[in-house]
């Protein structure tokens, strides 16, 4: 894949950062507004997929290689598991216990603020990392398939 015309390239080089930032916003505000880890992760992956469509697969892979996505995928899953397992060791001793959570009281200042829901934002960040990395990895691998098979056909013909 070679990428698209100069118009698409220059516009997407502007837009990609905004999409990425929007993905981060959706991920870390997941406990207050609609969205969360999965939706945010999909948007994060979309910014890289846009890069891939506009500049070609090689350029996107220079920025985020296949090995790195696979590692980020695993790191995301392990972070999520770590947040869940921390419940065993802190506080009330239970799997998935929200050990950072404080009892909410009326008029308390932190309610409905960014840092307010205990471990939920942490889990959202981990899920966002995992979903973003794995979705980009899927698209990358499927496009590798396509390049391989077209290369194979050219050899045959």
């Amino acid at each position, binding site marked *: 894949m070679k990428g698209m015309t100069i118009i698409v390239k220059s516009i997407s080089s502007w837009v990609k950062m905004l999409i990425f930032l929007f993905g981060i916003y959706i991920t870390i505000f997941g406990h207050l507004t609609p969205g969360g880890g999965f939706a945010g992760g999909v948007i994060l992956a979309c910014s890289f997929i846009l890069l891939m469509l506009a500049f070609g697969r090689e350029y996107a892979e220079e920025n985020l290689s296949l090995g790195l996505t696979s590692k980020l995928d695993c790191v995301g899953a*392990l972070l999520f598991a770590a947040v869940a*397992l921390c419940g065993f060791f802190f506080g009330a001793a*239970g799997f998935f216990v*929200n050990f950072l959570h404080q009892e909410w009281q009326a008029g308390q200042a932190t309610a409905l603020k960014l840092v307010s829901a205990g471990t939920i934002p942490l889990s959202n960040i981990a899920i966002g990392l995992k979903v973003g990395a794995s979705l980009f990895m899927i698209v990358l691998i499927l496009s590798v398939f396509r390049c391989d098979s077209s290369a194979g056909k050219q050899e045959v013909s």
Partner: protein
Amino acid sequence: MIIPLPVFVAVPLVTAFFLPLLGDKRRFGATILANIATGVLLVAAIATIGQSGVYQVGKWPIPLGINLVMDGLSGLVILAVSVVGFAAMLFSAGYMERYTAKPKYLSLFLLMVAGMNGVVLSGDMFNLFVFLEVASIASYALVGFGCEHEELEASFKYMVLGSVASMFILFGIGLVYGNTGSLNMAYASRSIAETGLTRGLVFALGLFVAGFGLKAALIPFHAWLPDAHSSAPAPISAMLSGVLIKTLGVYAITRVVFNVFGISIQLGWVLLVLGVLSMVAGGFLAIGQADIKRLMAYSSISQLGYVVMGIGLGGLIIAQGGSTAWASLAILGGLFHLINHAVYKSLLFLTSGSVEISTGTRQMDRMGGLGKVLPITRATCTIASASIAGVPPFSGFWSKLILVIAAVGAGYIWLGAIIVFVAVLTLIMYLKVQRYVFLGELPENLSGVEERRGSMTCAMVVLAYLCVLMGLLLLVPDLKAAVLDPAVDVLVNGISYSSRIISMP
């Protein structure tokens, strides 16, 4: 010793996601780590025998949060999953060396184990569906792991039918939620007991029977099983035949039918007829096969029929108001056959893998005389064959004996006759395996064959010892009271499950 229930899901899951971080180079370290994980699961499963309890994930009280339930039935199936998983993982340490992406294989294997443990422990219907999909998707990928022609075809077939089954189950879960207002099995069961079976719930029950029946490969729904189980790598065939079809199919359907909806006469007949059909048709289909793994796959259908038939017969007797003693004997036979079959069928698939890796073929007519060159494989395969055919001192005999006694005692003499007849069929098909594979003349091209020693033979010997000793589980009263009786009680007591779960701390 109390072991927190999430360990059964968390240990394989965390290990599965840790292994790819090691990279494809450090194969030895990854293998050791995966074996340690399955070993930990085995120890935990043995330590939880006799334990029962409800675990509230995240300390959310029951109707709000997800709960994990450990009772007799879960304990029995977890034990089977852990034993077979441990042996198959030990076997794959040697067997999978010829594949390039071994760490990926190991992490998919552990994901499948995590999914199965989750299905067995879950006390919440949607959570059950999620774990079922985790186990299924991992198994689809594992069946097609070799990426050759047959494997891809089998994997696609399995995946299409498996996805259709999953959609049936999800639709059924949606109907249960709409009709009862709860996804928790205990609360849904209480609500069903109050309202009775409405039309929507009957429809949901039909969807569940079709969906879980497809996952369990009972005879009208069996089309995918022989292809998938014969194309997969041998340790995966052992896992699929040994435990996957039991946890995703038989365990789930008995849990839903007995503990959530409550058994009725019609349902008992449905299970009984499905079981008998699978027994007879699976047996006849198996005898004609020339491929050793296909023969074993068809015989899995036949043996699974025994399990479903025993459980269905017990349910039928309970629903008709017959004597509880015969009902619990039939259910005991079914459940004991379930755990027996897990051990000897996985052993048979492991021996077929050992034969395949030594000779490079699965066609029985191209083999012969391998008994001389593969002594350990031959010995373990003979033990497993004797066990599955029901030769007296081995484990299969005891479970079939109990089923015959229960069927005759409850007045279903024809059923006892069918059970004995299918046992003879099984004996014939495994005599055929012995005759064509291990006896006779060694062909010229196989004269240089050697047995691979090490972890592979170790796994087979462990399972063979279990095959011989399994009868003790029934004959020693203490073991029976610890392992089998609580599982039978869960099914016999039926929908009082809900009141027990709700009252548990």
